[in-house]
């Protein structure tokens, strides 16, 4: 079996991970390193009247000379920027916001210092609810005229909404604020290299180059004076797609104190100060014909964007995406959507795996099930009436998204077959009122690897352009691939090597992928938006093709054949009279230059190449999820009895890794659907401050989904691959909510707020 594109080779990085040999931030030990502990705001909204520091190494905003706040602009008209202080000095705007940083030999001693810092707060009324924020007289940012980062409005054929429609379904839907919970939290180790006059900062990030750019701005340093290294990173999901206040502090401190410092986030810091995603509120109306054919969607959506615009994705990325993706994979004639990015006294919003899509999909698909019930159709039937048909691909939808390829109806039919709907309906008919059975499905698409044209419109600090990769031979015939992205669970050390293997035939064992280090890799916006397999994969492919040409020229010379008579593959250059191993070509270039042909490329066996897809509007993978649940109507407990997925990620570079992405995402989606919520009380205090209160799904909550693959190549990418990293997390809230509502429909109950907890189920049943 080969090792190239399409092969389920085991992940190369798993050897070190499974043996406990990975090196994460907290594994790094530097001589003289001291620990940091932050003093964080215990209140949601207050002016700081005074800070009394205990004796010892305690630093507040006034001490950090020359440090600038973090500002993440957006070019969208009307956007109000915020200045996020690295350490708050005049005002705090959410619980957990850093105010002071303490340095000591151990974290415990640094926390002793932190406990001795006294802060005099003048508390202000907190802005906690996003809808109330829109009209609140209390303002987070004093110079703003309201609490709205950005309002957007889009409409297509709105006159249709004034005409009568057979089916009009209006729903108010809400998703909870969540706390992304990678196994490894955030962490930073910073040291100043006196010889190079360079800051060396190890940080658990998805975006080392973006962190460097952002840090340089805050610190007033040349970017060449900063090296950012992301070592092994234990999960990101968007939580680590950010420039951190802690990174800026650690960088300043190591430079000015003359010794390395580190900060390791603990679970309490993560939970109390970083519940930062997914909180949406929809007022959504679906208009349809009597047969379920969609006329249009009219929606107002509010996204709780928290207190600041986080760098680089800004406070409005999520809401801006809501407006463009709400129509889902469907055709419709009319569309209207108004969105608000509301500023509240909560942590700044970050894009979490699925970015806006899991909430959007939930809101739309729960409403579509209501349409199906009114039309007297099965849930999948109403969807089949409205999905973009395969013959219209590529298809530009009502918000000008270009769906690149696929057969959406087939995908949905396959998952319905897999779940065996008739048998579910039979079991449902036999079920008692005490234990109801329900079926739910959803279908959605996932835009990935969208590039310059898309992001230029949003105008955030980071706009992806050409993705670059370096491919270079070592003298012994090995291949190094250098990429500016960061692999933190996606298996890119394997899949990028597979791309190189596909082109050059060099065995995976001889290929090393170097990533996560600004000193060694070309600039990249990093790992986010399911972009790496398309973008970094394309860049590696482009670099390897160029490298292949150069290898061919030397190989042809060694074979005494014309260049156009040889080809590179299977790790060798082959011609009419024989073949020469690529390793021999490398040896010749590096060690025996006297044997090189006269027309050899002086660039040698090291290529930097850039790549963009044929169109940068993004690949659209898509998936249908179907779930069967039981609902205990006496306790409100929900059990997932069956879960099936049909997914089309285009050409799969490594199907096993894709399955892993789908399963992991599904687990997180189950968390969104049934467990995860960070409630805030009226004073803006987060109530889930430990993992006993903030529930994450575990082994007993996540069924093994049955996964079916379609592979419709994307016409845009190098091998037809599509970004696939997020879809698993998008579908479960919709599929599971629909299944619960299907189970409870005979009892007259419909749930429209996530997560669907036993308490919410029972409260709805008791309120009848």
């Amino acid at each position, binding site marked *: 079996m080969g090792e190239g594109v399409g092969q389920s080779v085991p992940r190369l990085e798993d050897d070190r991970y499974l043996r406990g040999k990975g090196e994460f931030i907290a594994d790094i030990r530097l001589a003289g390193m001291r620990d940091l502990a932050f003093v964080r705001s215990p209140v949601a909204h207050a002016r700081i009247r005074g800070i009394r520091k205990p004796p010892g190494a305690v630093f507040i905003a006034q001490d950090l000379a020359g440090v600038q706040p973090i500002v993440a602009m957006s070019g969208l008209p009307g956007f109000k920027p915020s200045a996020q202080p690295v350490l708050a000095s005049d005002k705090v705007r959410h619980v957990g916001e850093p105010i002071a940083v303490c340095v000591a030999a*151990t*974290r*415990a001693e640094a*926390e*002793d210092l932190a*406990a001795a810092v006294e802060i005099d707060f003048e508390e202000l009324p907190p802005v906690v609810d996003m809808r109330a924020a829109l009209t609140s007289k209390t303002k987070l940012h004093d110079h703003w005229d309201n609490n709205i980062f950005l309002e957007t409005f889009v409409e297509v054929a709105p006159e249709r909404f004034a005409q009568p429609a057979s089916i009009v379904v209006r729903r108010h839907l809400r998703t909870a604020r969540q706390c992304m919970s990678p196994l490894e939290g955030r962490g930073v180790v910073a040291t100043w290299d006196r010889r190079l006059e360079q800051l060396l900062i190890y940080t658990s990030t998805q975006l080392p180059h973006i962190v460097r750019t952002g840090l340089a701005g805050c610190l007033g340093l040349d970017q060449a004076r900063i090296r950012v290294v992301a070592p092994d990173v234990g999960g990101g999901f968007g939580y680590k797609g950010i420039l951190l206040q802690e990174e800026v502090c650690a960088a300043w401190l190591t430079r000015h104190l003359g010794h390395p410092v580190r900060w390791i986030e*603990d679970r*309490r810091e993560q939970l109390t100060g970083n519940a930062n995603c997914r909180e949406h509120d929809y007022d959504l109306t679906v208009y349809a014909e009597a047969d379920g054919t969609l006329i249009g969607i009219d929606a107002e959506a509010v996204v709780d964007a928290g207190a600041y615009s986080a760098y680089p994705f800004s406070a409005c990325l999520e809401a801006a995406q809501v407006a463009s993706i709400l129509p889902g994979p469907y055709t419709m004639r009319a569309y209207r959507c108004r969105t608000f990015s509301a500023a509240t006294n909560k942590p700044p919003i970050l894009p979490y795996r699925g970015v806006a899509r899991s909430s959007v999909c939930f809101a739309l698909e729960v409403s579509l099930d209501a349409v199906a019930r009114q039309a007297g159709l099965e849930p999948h039937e109403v969807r089949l009436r409205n999905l973009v048909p395969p013959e219209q691909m590529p298809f530009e939808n009502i918000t000008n998204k270009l769906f690149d390829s696929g057969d959406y109806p087939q995908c949905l039919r396959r998952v319905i077959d897999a779940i065996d709907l008739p048998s579910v309906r039979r079991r449902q008919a036999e079920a008692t009122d005490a234990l109801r059975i329900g079926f739910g499905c959803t279908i959605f698409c996932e835009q990935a690897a969208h590039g310059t044209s898309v992001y230029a419109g949003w105008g955030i600090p980071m706009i992806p352009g050409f993705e670059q990769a370096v491919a270079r031979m070592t003298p012994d015939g090995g291949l190094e691939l250098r990429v500016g992205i960061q692999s933190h669970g996606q298996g890119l050390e394997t899949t990028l090597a597979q791309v190189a293997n596909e082109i050059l035939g060099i065995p995976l064992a001889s290929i090393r992928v170097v990533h996560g280090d600004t000193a060694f890799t070309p600039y990249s916006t990093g790992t986010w938006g399911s972009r790496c397999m398309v973008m970094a994969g394309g860049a590696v492919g482009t670099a390897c093709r160029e490298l292949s040409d150069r290898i061919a020229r030397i190989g042809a010379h060694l074979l005494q054949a014309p260049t156009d008579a040889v080809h590179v593959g299977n790790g060798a250059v082959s011609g009419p009279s024989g073949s020469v191993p690529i390793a021999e070509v490398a040896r010749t270039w590096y060690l025996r230059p006297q044997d090189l042909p006269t027309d050899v490329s002086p660039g040698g066996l090291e290529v930097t190449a850039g790549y963009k897809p044929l169109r940068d509007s993004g690949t659209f993978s898509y998936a249908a999820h179907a779930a069967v649940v039981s609902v205990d109507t*006496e*306790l*409100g*407990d929900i059990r997932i009895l069956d879960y099936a997925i049909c997914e089309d990620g285009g050409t799969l570079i490594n199907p096993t890794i894709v399955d892993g992405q789908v399963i992991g995402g599904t687990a997180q989606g189950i968390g969104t659907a049934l*467990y995860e919520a960070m409630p805030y009380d009226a004073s803006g205090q987060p109530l889930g401050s*430990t993992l*006993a209160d903030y*529930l994450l*799904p*575990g082994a*007993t*909550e996540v069924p093994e989904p049955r996964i079916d693959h379609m592979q419709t190549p994307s016409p845009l990418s190098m091998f037809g691959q599509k970004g696939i990293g997020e879809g698993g997390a998008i579908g479960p809230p919709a599929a599971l909510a629909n299944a619960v509502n299907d189970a409870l429909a005979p009892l007259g109950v419909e749930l429209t707020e996530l997560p669907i*907890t*036993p*308490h919410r189920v*029972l*409260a709805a049943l*008791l309120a009848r």
Partner: protein
Amino acid sequence: MKPAPFELARPTDVAAAITLLRDGARVIAGGQSLGPMLNLRLAQPGTLVQVNQLPELCGVASDADSVTIGACVTHAAIADGLVPDIGNGVLARVAENIAYRAVRNRGTIGGSLCHADPAADWVTVLTALDAMVLLRGPDGERSLRAADFIRGPFRTALAPGEILFAVSIPRLPPDSRWGYEKACRKPGDFAHAMAAVLLHRTVRRAVIGALGGKPLLLQGDAVSVEGATSALQDLDPVMRHMQLTVLRRALAKAGA
């Protein structure tokens, strides 16, 4: 979070441990509840007295009437059947559903009672089984019914300087019937409703736990859904419905 500084004392016998329990000193056994509280700095004792290494607290004894379990016997040891059965495998079945194996490996029956978390399994179960809690302090030994030992949420009858050294649990009479149910969001998670029911010729007892305070003990004719309904009048209606459902299921298991 890391704990505030503290002294760690590791006495070699219970008498020495009691001597060490001066002002501010706290006992630590398996540390499965106190450990997180220390890390969160919710507890900041000057001295911790570690006791789970003391052989006197790890023993098990039994006679015809009861089984006596040392305070520092772990949930895992009970789940694994390393203590005598009081009947019907009740203790092992309760223990094996406490939290997760990692917690069971360290957590102890005495520690759980002394921590008195309203959602703790032993708080409810030992009240239902009418266990005796054996205490030893500077003034000697005394014993209390479990129902009297638990005073409220995270509050017990433990006097300053006293430690709980064992729990004595009556054997179940041959004709007894037992039912135990709890409702958790996830297996191993803290319960949001729980009920234990013990029925035989001379005893009718039901205990409802996870009420946020002292467990509710129902006896005699009050052992019924109706009895519990009137006792739980003030509870949030949804929570009351859950508690009553769990009680109904525990009663059904006990064949009531």
